[in-house]
């Protein structure tokens, strides 16, 4: 104890040089540092890919706009989609899981710290490689720049004949690297959760966050390999004439779609489960009640995980499957609605009868609940295969999945930042700026994406760089673009808040939210070893038990 106090007292005077600190980042295997590096890198790629979206919206603000050329536009939506999924969504979930899982299960680090660092650097350099294509995509043939085949890169558009130059190769390699990063993170999470839990933490006493991350990790292990395999096959096609997907040589275009979506649909759930994970931690704390129906929440999440592997071809209702195939995938897709409904109802049940405190994390979670509800319902519409024949590949679909990924995932990411920043940095984020962030972003988000559903009803396809006047699309596109300005201003508020509060924010203390999981039992920020003494738990809410010895949870569980 004495040694530690001396070390803490001396720390502020030391001021290590920038080189030393950078060196430390490069060599670190600490799960908290890696977690924050993941999140910082993801936020960086988020601003880049978000700016690309803003450019696309500027091009579409009026019909027949000449702001950017079709080639540039096509690169923008490809890079935006690829980056948001593989360089923002995946790493931010890896970052949150890395930072929080060991703390929540009372462990000192991840099970495989070096593998952890390896995963981060694979993702990070994969991301840089993807953007490097803007400089090097032309290759020796002098054709091409950044990839322009769309984020799901339907063959045979990716064949040499239609995609000359190296741009598609950069896309393949970047995603392969990111895939390796994701797979090792998943292995590490599973190993950590199964082997490193503190005394007393049975599986059914784990925080919901940890349960959901375990399920996500399992899904990554099953979903990533088909994608990596398909990428390698495509690489063989492009360099060795393997002809898996090369239709001009008798390959199959639909095969690629199956491979891609058998990864791609579970991927959507891989991205949304972390949102569930965050909401399942924050909603109880700010409703002052335990999560309602914990075993049902766990079971529902596992069911979603399983069903998500049997729904992939609902992305392919228009490729000409048989009526039996279409019906099968419509049925499985609608079935996902049942466990997803259970989750929403249980969050509602958690809030019902509580004392809801409208702190920033809770505000973003409430936004998440409403928006995810809408996203789920538009998902049901798309699952009705005949309705999908009209809506597929229209702006309605774009609006739907942005409701899932922004309205759902990003809102909980924001909630997570406001909730755990005090733990990671030791200071609170400014509430006033946070409220500006919340309201600007919410208004902007709804301006952009509520209106985007409608041109889909009116026949506007997605991924078109321009459109003619007179089809009733103009006003909705105009409003969509205006919403982007508000969202950008909101993100600026967040960035300023993150930087400002790190130095000037109010001191957080160990447990600013009066929360119940183990990460709040240690200091803010936690020491390198997390806990001086590894905790012992007797229930799902160990800190509740300590704070309420007269009425502990373990009596009821």
């Amino acid at each position, binding site marked *: 104890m004495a040694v530690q106090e001396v070390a803490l007292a001396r720390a502020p005077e030391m001021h290590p040089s920038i080189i030393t600190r950078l060196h430390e980042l490069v060599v670190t295997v600490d799960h908290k540092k890696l977690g924050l590096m993941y999140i910082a890198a993801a936020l960086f790629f988020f601003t880049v890919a978000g700016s690309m979206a803003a450019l696309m919206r500027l091009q579409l603000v009026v*019909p027949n706009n000449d702001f950017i*050329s079709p*080639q540039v536009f*096509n690169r923008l939506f490809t890079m935006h989609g690829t980056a948001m999924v593989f360089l923002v969504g995946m790493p931010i979930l890896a970052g949150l899981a890395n930072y929080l899982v060991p703390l929540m299960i009372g462990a000192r680090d991840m099970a495989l710290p070096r593998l952890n660092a390896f995963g981060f650097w694979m993702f990070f350099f994969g991301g840089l490689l993807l953007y490097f294509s803007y400089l090097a995509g032309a290759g020796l043939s002098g054709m091409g720049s950044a990839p322009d085949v769309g984020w799901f890169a*339907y063959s*045979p*558009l990716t064949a040499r*004949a*239609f995609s000359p130059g190296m741009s598609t190769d950069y896309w393949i390699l970047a995603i392969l690297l990111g895939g390796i990063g994701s797979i090792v993170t998943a292995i590490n999470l599973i190993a950590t959760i199964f082997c490193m839990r503190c005394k007393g933490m049975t599986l059914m006493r784990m925080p919901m966050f940890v349960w959901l991350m375990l399920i996500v990790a399992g899904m990554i292990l099953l979903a990533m390999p088909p994608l990596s395999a398909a990428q390698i096959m495509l690489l063989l096609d492009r360099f060795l004439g393997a002809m898996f997907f090369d*239709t001009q040589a008798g390959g199959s*275009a*639909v095969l690629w779609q199956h491979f891609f979506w058998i990864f791609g649909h579970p991927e959507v759930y891989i991205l949304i489960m972390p949102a569930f994970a965050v909401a399942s931690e924050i909603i109880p704390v700010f409703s*002052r*009640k*335990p999560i*309602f*129906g*914990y*075993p*049902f929440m766990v079971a529902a999440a596992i069911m979603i995980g399983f069903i998500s592997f049997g729904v992939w071809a609902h992305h392919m209702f*228009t490729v*000409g499957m048989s*009526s039996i195939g*279409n*019906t099968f995938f*419509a049925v499985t897709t*609608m079935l996902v*609605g*049942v466990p997803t*409904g259970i989750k929403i109802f249980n969050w*509602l049940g958690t809030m*019902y009868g*509580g*004392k*809801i405190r409208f702190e920033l994390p809770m505000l973003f979670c409430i936004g998440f*609940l*409403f928006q995810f509800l*809408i996203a789920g*319902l538009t998902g049901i*519409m798309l699952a*009705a*295969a*005949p*309705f999908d*024949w*009209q809506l*597929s*590949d229209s702006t309605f679909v774009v609006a739907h999945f942005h409701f899932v990924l922004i309205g759902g995932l990003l809102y909980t990411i924001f909630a997570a930042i406001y909730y755990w920043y005090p733990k990671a940095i030791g200071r609170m984020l400014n509430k006033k700026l946070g409220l500006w962030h919340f309201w600007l972003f919410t208004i902007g988000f709804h301006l952009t994406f509520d209106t985007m559903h409608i041109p889909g*009803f*009116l*026949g*506007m*396809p997605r*991924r078109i760089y*321009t459109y*003619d006047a*007179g*089809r009733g699309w103009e006003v909705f596109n105009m409003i969509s673009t205006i919403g982007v300005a508000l969202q950008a201003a909101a993100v600026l508020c967040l960035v300023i808040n993150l930087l400002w509060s790190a130095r000037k924010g109010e001191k957080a203390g160990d447990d600013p939210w009066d929360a119940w999981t183990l990460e709040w039992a240690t200091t803010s920020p936690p020491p390198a070893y997390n806990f001086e003494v590894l905790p012992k738990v007797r229930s799902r809410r160990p800190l509740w038990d300590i704070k309420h010895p007269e*009425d502990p949870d373990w009596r*009821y569980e």
Partner: protein
Amino acid sequence: MADNLNIHQIAVVPEQVTNIFKPLATPSESIYQISLLTLAICGVIFLIVGGLLVYTIIRFRTRSNDEQSEPPQIYGSNQIELAWTVFPILIVFVLILVTARTISDVQNATHPPDSLKVTVVGHQWWWEIRYPDLGIVTANELHVPVSDPAKPRRTVLKLQSADVAHSYWVPQLSGKVDLIPNRDNYMWFDPKQTGLYLGNCAEYCGTQHAHMLIRVIVHQQEEFDRWVLEQQKPAVDNREVTAGRKVFLSTSCVNCHTISGTIAGGKFGPDLTHLMSRDTLGAGAIKNTPNLLRAWVHDPQKLKEGCLMPDMQLSQQELDLIVAYLSTLK
């Protein structure tokens, strides 16, 4: 360049021409029915769950007078869990039955033998349209007969692709179906009204995906028969433009374009035999007027950037002659 101002005004079309809620054929109507049902169910769910959320948030907000104490700790309830598992299952069950029926109605329909058969081949970035039974080849603008209740007439499209994946989508007639290389897909419709129907390519297919306009012109039967007769004729052979014809046939235009009755037999680009019977050029990129046709032949890259027709580097004189010749191909 005055034309530039209005090159994009393809035609005056009614506002609702691609609205999926204004169906004008049997498949789009079946889809419309199920859309309304789905929208209604989802709307009711939204009102109920959203209403409960709003109620909960307002009713159970922390009030300033009792911040200290914790509310009763409730861990769950098996009965309630059962209820909100069973109700969604019932709703899903209903939706599944309706969905399965509509899928079958649209996909498994048997077509009467007198249905008009058309093959549509997607190209980067235009539509090749063939009527195998009528011996007609044209591009971008699909002409079909109307289906009136007294004399129903269906059109069945066989959908293919020459290069990458495309998708054929005319919202008022049918849902979309993809055109995929090495594969035959089918779509059918029976337009209830004459007139112009619009649609777009709905699967990203490369640089000019935005300019793959679909125009379907629905005629009365007699009018359609007249159109067929016109299209079946060989290309007009007008003596006044022999010089232009000669230039056209002596340049590499013939490697990509077909004009029936001449040596021009290329298959990469649209058939030009009856070019002037079409209203648009470049798959709806511009209107087909003499000035714009000249601008197009001169440098298509200016009007449809990235399209596969190159600037042929023609002299002004060659350009005049070729355009004069093309203008006669009624």
